[in-house]
């Protein structure tokens, strides 16, 4: 079993990790690096709770081998959370009751971040379209959609 050294940028910091063949980014983040905001829901690419951004694009970390992100830029929820405090998207999720059990929340926020980075003023349909790969079994989605609309208003075209 030939483990390999993989170098990539994680949340703005260059890191070097040793991984067994075909280890997924999800397993690396949660089990090796202790970054547990990235959830392990279905491990089938079906629920979206493991969504991370690779060069700004949402991807399912449960389906992504670590070796495939060699040299790339990976962002997780830890990476967009300021210290101290919360990112605007986190604040609006909290204030709009867009979080119940919380398991889908990191994936939802990562997709919202990617959407608002591309489109600072998304319409309702565009928000729904962006979220189709992320399941929430608690909220019924409406508070999440409203939270993202509120985030867009507060950011007013200024991301981060």
């Amino acid at each position, binding site marked *: 079993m030939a483990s390999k050294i993989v170098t990539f940028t994680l949340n703005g910091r260059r890191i070097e990790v040793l991984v067994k063949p075909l280890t997924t980014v999800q397993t690396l983040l949660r089990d090796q690096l202790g970054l547990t905001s990235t959830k392990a829901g279905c491990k*089938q690419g079906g629920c979206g709770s493991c969504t991370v951004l690779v060069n700004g*694009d949402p991807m399912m970390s449960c389906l*992504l081998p670590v070796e495939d992100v060699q040299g790339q830029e990976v962002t997780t929820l830890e990476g967009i959370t300021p210290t101290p405090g919360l990112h605007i998207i986190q604040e609006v999720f909290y204030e709009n009751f867009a979080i119940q059990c919380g398991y889908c929340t990191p994936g939802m926020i990562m997709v919202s971040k990617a959407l608002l980075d591309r489109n600072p003023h998304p319409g309702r349909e565009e928000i729904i379209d962006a979220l189709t790969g992320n399941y929430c079994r608690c909220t019924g989605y409406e508070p999440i959609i409203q939270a993202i609309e509120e985030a867009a208003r507060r950011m007013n075209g200024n991301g981060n």
Partner: protein
Amino acid sequence: MNTREYFLPQSVNEATQLLAKHGPFMLVMAGGTIAMPLINEGISFPQKVMGLRRAGLSYVTKPNGKITIGAMSTLTQMLDLKEIPILQEAAHQVGGWAIRNMGTVGGNLFAPPPAGDFAAALMALDAQLKLVSTAGARIISLTDFYTGFMTTALSPGELVTEIQVPVPTGKTAYLKYGRKHANTPAVVTVAAQIELDGEGVTNSRIALNAVGPHPIRASKAEEILSGSPLNPTTINMAASAAAEECEPFSDAIATEWYRRKMVEVYVRRTLTKITDRR
């Protein structure tokens, strides 16, 4: 997981050499949206896996009258193909955003039904595939590519490297019917391209997915349309021929009976959509 080796070739050349060396015991993986769930679940436990993300196959070029798509181009990349709206539409109806960022055009050709809708759209456009091995390259039509459930005309050592799509000369329409509006497996998917000379149909291609062992052509329906005018009578005849000739299956999404009924409805709607576009 007991995968012992994961190869990440940096070129097609390197990929075909690895394939020649490790042969059928190596799983070839594109975007990972089909293979990784099976591996995570312990259903498949390949000892050797080859990923193609770094093999330089993520490109779209547009030589005269043709669109050439590298097999590792993602479905997200297909959303920019303004020349072929039917492919934009088909790509947009696959999975959610993150899955479209990972899933590839080449990988979709190997997605067992009810997945593989994008391949049905390619089939209606008469796409050709470029297959490459260490021995050389050959071109085969997508319609001839499928030989059975999860079997293809690929010879040992061959990789699909490129999908070549002629820019459609006829009118096209695409309808996918699933149980939800988005991110859903198909009950049936219909992709059609019809060429008309005045009122008469000169050439027709109707591809169906989720109602057979792989994306299929509704050839009897195509025959009925050939040389006939495209009107409600011929459309109804073609739709019932398609329902008769398809080979649907029962799964968690729909029964065989229901799928067959829906083939008739959706072939009719797809062809009607084409007449509306005149």
